């Protein structure tokens, strides 16, 4: 078996607050194959963003190990950062900055020369329908246009693994469909592995090859959308929503369901 894109063992993260510790992630194991689109689901506060922030080197884990894009998270964070793209839940656009400038600066931060960064910006603008918007400041973009730019920024370094944290929040149905198409295309053309968190179950159903459900900081279910549906509702015609509710409604936090 070829080396997986993401391999996580016993990952934990505890935040220390004045009131006491918050166990945001309590021992997650997961493996994502190269070229796979993984849907990472879970209710609010389940620990999705915390997990993504650890896997993108932004947050030091309290415990556990992970390899991302073939590099050890703790031993070689710079090696990981070079090979991944990250689109945060909060987006990460500077309202005062222009679209072209954001793209070029991001390329430069990934150590492209000025010329290469300029070419890469044009290329991404064509791929993500940003050509007409290149001279605008990012405040002047619509929600869908912003998302496209944020994803373009995450793709600047042609990442092996792309982390998308709730990418379709606030998008209208048309923009969401566009986003799905884009994610499929990126994977099809570049073989990119996609780690996607979302609250939209239809989105996970439409995009993800495999789904991992977390609740209370631990993995509570895992499988393809079809597997989860039949396993947790017993009804092949059920929606992923029914399966999700069955999983997170029944499971007590931290106790994995046997699946």
């Amino acid at each position, binding site marked *: 078996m070829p080396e997986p894109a993401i391999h996580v063992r016993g990952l934990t993260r505890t935040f220390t607050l004045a009131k006491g510790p918050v166990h945001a992630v309590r021992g997650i194991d997961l493996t994502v194959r190269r070229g796979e689109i993984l849907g990472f689901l879970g209710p609010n506060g389940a620990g999705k963003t915390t997990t993504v922030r650890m896997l993108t080197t*932004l*947050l030091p884990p309290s415990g556990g190990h992970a390899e991302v894009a073939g590099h050890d998270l703790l031993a070689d964070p710079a090696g990981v*950062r070079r090979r991944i793209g990250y689109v945060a839940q*909060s987006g*990460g*656009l*500077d309202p005062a900055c222009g679209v072209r*400038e954001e793209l070029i600066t*991001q390329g430069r*931060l990934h150590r492209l020369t000025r010329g290469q960064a300029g070419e890469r910006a044009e290329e991404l603008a064509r791929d993500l329908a940003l050509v007409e918007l290149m001279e605008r400041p990012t405040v002047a973009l619509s929600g869908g246009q912003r998302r496209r730019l944020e994803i373009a920024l995450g793709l600047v370094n042609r990442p092996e693994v792309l982390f998308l944290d709730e990418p379709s929040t606030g998008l209208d149905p048309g923009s969401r469909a566009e986003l799905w198409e884009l994610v499929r295309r990126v994977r099809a053309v570049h073989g990119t592995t996609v780690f996607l968190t979302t609250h939209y179950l239809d989105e996970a159903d439409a995009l993800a090859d495999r789904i991992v459900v977390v609740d209370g900081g631990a993995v509570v279910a895992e499988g393809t959308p079809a597997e989860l549906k039949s396993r947790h509702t017993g009804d092949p015609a059920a929606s992923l929503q029914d399966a999700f509710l069955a999983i997170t409604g029944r499971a007590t936090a931290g106790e994995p369901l046997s699946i």
Partner: protein
Amino acid sequence: MTLLTDTGIIFGRYLRATLRSRTSLLFGMLQPLLFLALFGPLLTGFDLGVGGSSWQALVPGVLVQLALLGGSFVGLGLLVERNLGVIDRMRVTPVSPLALLLGRTLRDVVQLLVQSILLVGLGVAFGLRAPLGGIVLGLLFVAVLAAALSALSYGLAMNVGTPPEFAAIANTAAMPLMLLSGLLLPMSLAPGWLDAASRVVPLRYTVDAVRQVFQGHYANATVLTGAAVTVALAAACVFGGARLFSRTRA
């Protein structure tokens, strides 16, 4: 080498942002400008006990004040960017946190130098007379001090939750520093206890030294002490700021 290139990229990005919003350049200058225009004329008849004209004492104070107030609040902008996710986006690249810090700090130093040159020009219009070499040296002091305060402010901003929290801390720190270092009126006028208290504030040594170089005294003990204190402060602040900057808030 990559540190220099990366710092340059970050510096360029933020410098362009500053140039786009010219208002921030001018707003930051308004307060020191008012001190020069509305407070400076009150002092012209007094002997401030530091030698030279009252302008040679006030303009250095106003420059250090600009560095102090401008520098301590730069973190506010960083905090806003952090909450927007801009900083995280830049941190998921091979660029080191130190470059992210130094690039911005450098931008602040350049902005402060431009503002300082305008203020000195204005001071000259009001009646400041100082040797050119002294002015250049004075600006160098102010630049090093500004770098120190910016770096520290950014380090703080990476470890504080909200803008109001940050503003409260920065205000609480800046106000006593300003009063205790004798920026507007030199500490030579102060009673003994206040003069003694002000000797624990590093800025006091910077402003005293700038007052000396504005009078053309370059190699006396005040200037050398000021230089040593300012450089030591900058080294400590950049080091501390970088540590705070790369630490992730828990």
